[in-house]
């Protein structure tokens, strides 16, 4: 399937391994990525806090660009925060024809216009709802047998449920669990898996921010996880890049590897840890690398 692909900023900045691993994994799932390289940052909620109409207009521009991609079935992102920020703007744009017209008048100079009803899915949602778990299972070359994976969802992709269309028909707040199981891994539940990583207040209250990250990492260690997996690069920044500092704040050794979702999927599809950029992590995913070296059945 062909998608208008929004990689976000951080996947091309401080977490280059995310964008890189997505590019490697997409062809293995028959996803054609048409990158929205003309689009700007979603604002991550901060632009909306600054000026709501500005955030809505900048994102409407991205949506309009996505709607122009010939043959694209939908828009896809690889960042929970992008998903949340975009969903919030789209909710307002889709709710009122008059407001949409107002926003579109600002885009008219570029010849762009957003039409109500864009489908925009995080890679996690697309994996479950479009690719399908059975289809995914058939493509697994290196089942994650005996790998104990703790899901870390990130707030923006699980709340608020109504806006994100999460219900019993579409239990999107449980999809990481389903994907880990489909890939053959063991899901490790722990207290912080749907809580906040703390990143949004890292510059405002560093201690509270790192305490959040440190506690969740500690909980995952106590629950005996080998690694965490997250669909959000901002969570990854607090959980991986800041992990040495978080360890200091909570006063315990951590050393918990945190994978991006495409890395975990890529591993199961037979790619090597190095190809997936795992050497770039601050916390070396030693447990994952050792595990991948020890299992038989990897793609030749």
């Amino acid at each position, binding site marked *: 399937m062909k998608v208008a692909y929004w990689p976000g900023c951080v996947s091309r900045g401080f977490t280059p391994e995310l964008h890189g691993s997505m590019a490697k994994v997409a062809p293995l799932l028959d996803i054609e990525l048409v990158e929205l390289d003309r689009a700007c940052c979603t604002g991550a909620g901060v632009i909306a806090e600054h000026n*709501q109409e*500005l955030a809505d207009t900048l994102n409407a521009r991205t949506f309009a660009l996505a709607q122009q991609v010939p043959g694209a079935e939908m828009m896809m992102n690889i960042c929970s925060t992008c998903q949340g920020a975009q969903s919030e703007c789209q909710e307002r744009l889709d709710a009122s024809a008059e407001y949409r017209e107002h926003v579109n008048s600002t885009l008219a100079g570029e010849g762009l216009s957003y039409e109500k009803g864009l489908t925009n899915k995080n890679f996690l949602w697309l994996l479950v709802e479009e690719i399908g778990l059975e289809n995914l299972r058939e493509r697994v070359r290196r089942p994650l047998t005996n790998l104990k994976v703790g899901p870390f969802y990130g707030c923006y992709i699980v709340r608020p449920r109504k806006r994100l269309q999460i219900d019993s028909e579409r239990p999107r707040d449980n999809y990481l669990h389903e994907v880990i199981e489909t890939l053959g891994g063991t899901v490790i539940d722990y207290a912080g898996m749907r809580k906040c990583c703390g990143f949004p207040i890292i510059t405002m209250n560093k201690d509270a921010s790192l305490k959040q990250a440190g506690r969740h990492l500690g909980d995952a260690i106590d629950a005996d996880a080998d690694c965490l997996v997250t669909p959000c690069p901002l969570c990854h920044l607090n959980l991986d890049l800041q992990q040495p*500092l978080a360890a200091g704040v909570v006063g315990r050794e951590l050393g918990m590897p945190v994978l991006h979702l495409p890395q975990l999927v890529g591993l199961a599809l037979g790619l090597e840890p190095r190809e997936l950029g795992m050497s770039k992590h601050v916390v070396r995913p030693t447990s994952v690398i050792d595990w991948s070296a020890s299992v038989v059945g990897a793609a030749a």
Partner: protein
Amino acid sequence: MTEAHDREGGIESFTLRLRRYDPESGEAPYWDEHTVELEAHRSVLEAILQARDRFDGSIGIRCSCRQAICGSCGVRVNGEPALACHTHLDAARGGSGADGVIEIEPMGNMPVIKDLIVDMDEVHWKKIQRVTPWLLAKQPVPEREYLVPRESMVDVTQTMACIQCGACVSDCLAMEVDPGFIGPAALAKAYRFVGDPRDDQQYERLNDLAQDPQGIFDCTHCFKCVEACPKDVNPMGQIMRLRRVAIADHHIRDHNNGERHEAAFATLIKDNGLLWEAELLPRSYGGNSFFGKFAPSAAKELLSSLPSIFKALARGKVTLAGALKPHKIPSEDLKAVQGIYDKVEGRERRYELNLYISGSDEDNAPVVPEQAAVGATPSTVAPPRPDPGPPSAAEEESVTHQGGAGADASADDPEAGSEGSNSQ
């Protein structure tokens, strides 16, 4: 744990797993199970009361109105905060674990007095008092009523819908790690007065809440309170509005990097189209310019982050070139983005669409299908509504005169909300 269906719409069995705790007993908390018999549309509260009446009179639960108005019966149902009287048994069972048992616990972030009763005074009401929850009226108080624009009062109706149940406080993730955080309920209440055109202390209130390290910039934007609120108050949204008014209208520069972070973020997107993380952090600490990173506060911060920075460089996660040079969108597109900034930020008043107030086109569509013409009548479409601004003479109309304190006395009076039949 039997969930036998007697007949459709008839009496069914529901098993409750109640968290029991009496701090005065010296015993540890424990779980207690009771099976009750009620119709599926009955509330979790009715189930708890039946368990108390039939099996154990010592079960502690606070309740009063039983119709989601008094805010007394906040608990956690299957791990999520809710009003016990506002949660149907079938829905609660649907959200339970594999065994179908409905798990009921006291709310979080507040000490337990007994079983399902938490100490609201110790946490929630103290925080509410912290934000001066009454009108500080503009002087002189008019002889009859204040004249204010209708939409400026409509603007605060969302926060006035709060029933002080504490559900948002229970699950606030910032408060979980930082108990001193003023929190969602109190900050939503603060907006109720900041947004009230009759209040005289908008700047003072905002400056106080912005400078407090546990004020408006301590919210971690996790949407927990949005999800928790049974009245759709959207406390996090109100906190974002407090930030917006503080920064954009009052140009308040706080000591918590809140204003600098927002300014740096907005500027970097305008300059590059994409976020430049390596520049965002130092600017958030040192000031929103290229030279921000040379400010002492930024240097101190960079120094404390050196372990992470070195590791990121060593692993090739961040390259020096990548850190020193932003990634940008193509120049034509950047110009378009900057054009959007100029146009939108250049407006005399900010547009802000609050769907709680305006509703969606679907909500406002005429009920009778025949009348749902292609072009909806103007009265059915919610127009984009600007932020409340100074009243213009033409828009003015009267609202009820409240004089001094207690604009919406019943909701704002701590005593009013904390009462209830405490049946422990």
